[in-house]
């Protein structure tokens, strides 16, 4: 499931932020991809809509990489 979420994140970032899909990996940090705090909030909001989950603010603050974002969505789906 985490792989599906990762693919969704990669697709979202490459379309909305015009990032090169090849550069987006599980280990990529938002910072390394040139994304700031507002970009990460927007991404998580899109993922909340897509997967119909809620990520608490405290969890959001700990999400710094694409992999952590995918895991955060997975945790919320399992909760």
């Amino acid at each position, binding site marked *: 499931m985490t792989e599906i979420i990762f693919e969704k994140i990669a697709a979202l970032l490459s379309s909305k932020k015009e990032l090169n899909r090849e550069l987006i990996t599980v280990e990529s940090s938002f910072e390394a991809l040139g994304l*700031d*705090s*507002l970009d990460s*909030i927007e991404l998580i*909001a899109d993922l909340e809509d897509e997967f119909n989950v809620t990520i*608490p*603010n*405290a969890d*959001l*603050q700990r999400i710094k990489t694409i992999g952590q974002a995918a895991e955060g969505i997975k945790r919320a789906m399992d909760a």
Partner: protein
Amino acid sequence: MKHRRVVITGTGIVSAIGMNTQAFWKNIVECRSGIDVYDPTLSDQIRFKHGADIKGFDASAFMEKNELDLMDRFAQFAVIAGNEAVAAAGIVFNEDNSNRSAVICGSSIGGIHAQENAYVELYRESKSRIHPFTIPRTMPNSAASNISMQLGITGPVYTISTACASSNHAIGNAFWLIRNGICDQAIAGGSETPFTYAFLKAWEAIRVVAPDTCRPFSKNRQGMIIGEGAGMVVMETLENAQARGATILSELVGFGMTSDASHITKPNQKGAEHAMKLALADANLAPDEIDYISAHGTGTLANDSMEVAAVRAIFGTHANSLAISSTKSLHGHALGATSALEAVATTMALQHGIFPPTANFEAADEACNIDVVPNASRKGNIRHALSNAFAFGGLNAVLAFKKWEE
């Protein structure tokens, strides 16, 4: 040209910790927070449940029905606070002084209740008509205009909207108008009423609101808490105040404003530093003459550590001798009105020699290592004070005050 001196002779407050200056100041001194569970009919579908709203507000206790009908809640708050400030100052506006008088109000969002009501009627209830007063109630300048109409003030009257720095910009502009001889007296401050469903949803979406309470500078802080209210001051030339035998509460001595020109929400230390530096220079004060800083202190991770770092950069070793506190922990973050509430608190602090506390403080944060007057107010002589406002949009406004002494 020699600058004219400008003093504050009246204050007015509408807030979750008091519907007048006296009650507001008493709750600050006693460190009683107005943060609580806000209206459950609004919070039901919103992730954060706490705010500093004003429960049971009844405008008809303060004004006639034909007056209040033309005003949205934020304009009602402004008029009520303005009337208190004018009564406290004992100033009378008449044909001799009305065109040398100003009203400058701050607000981020203006009459958002009227606006959202109209949208609900149109989009949800499919009505074909909305209330004919929707325009006069919604327009952000209606607070300043209504104060002007009620008091017959015919000089410069306008509204400044710079998000959470709106009121400091308003007070600073009024200060400069008087100091530079454009006007002789002014009513300045701001009002804000953000407790509407869509607007709270917008704050939910941007994820800066704490789930429980506002803990500025505390290690476990989780964000801001939204408040509502109004603060107004009457300011005038020292000469006028003394000629009419007015009680002087404090002296406004400096104003500095800058733009970060960097990020729409992320605070920028250089912009904050520069605004404080400009306020000190405008007041002709050295850093070691400041004893108290009313912080912007939102309780967000990013703001509070940035603000302490900026203070340390400007004040050097004197930062270890001054106190800095955030009364947002008591009255909430009233957005465009918040720096007006804080300007009144700062004036009271100077007048009474009491450092306002930072409430809800639980644990020291290395990144905020400074005296934040935790959880209890404290007596002490305050010679001069700064009041900081650092808004979304990267807009900074800092006021400098002096204790009034004959």
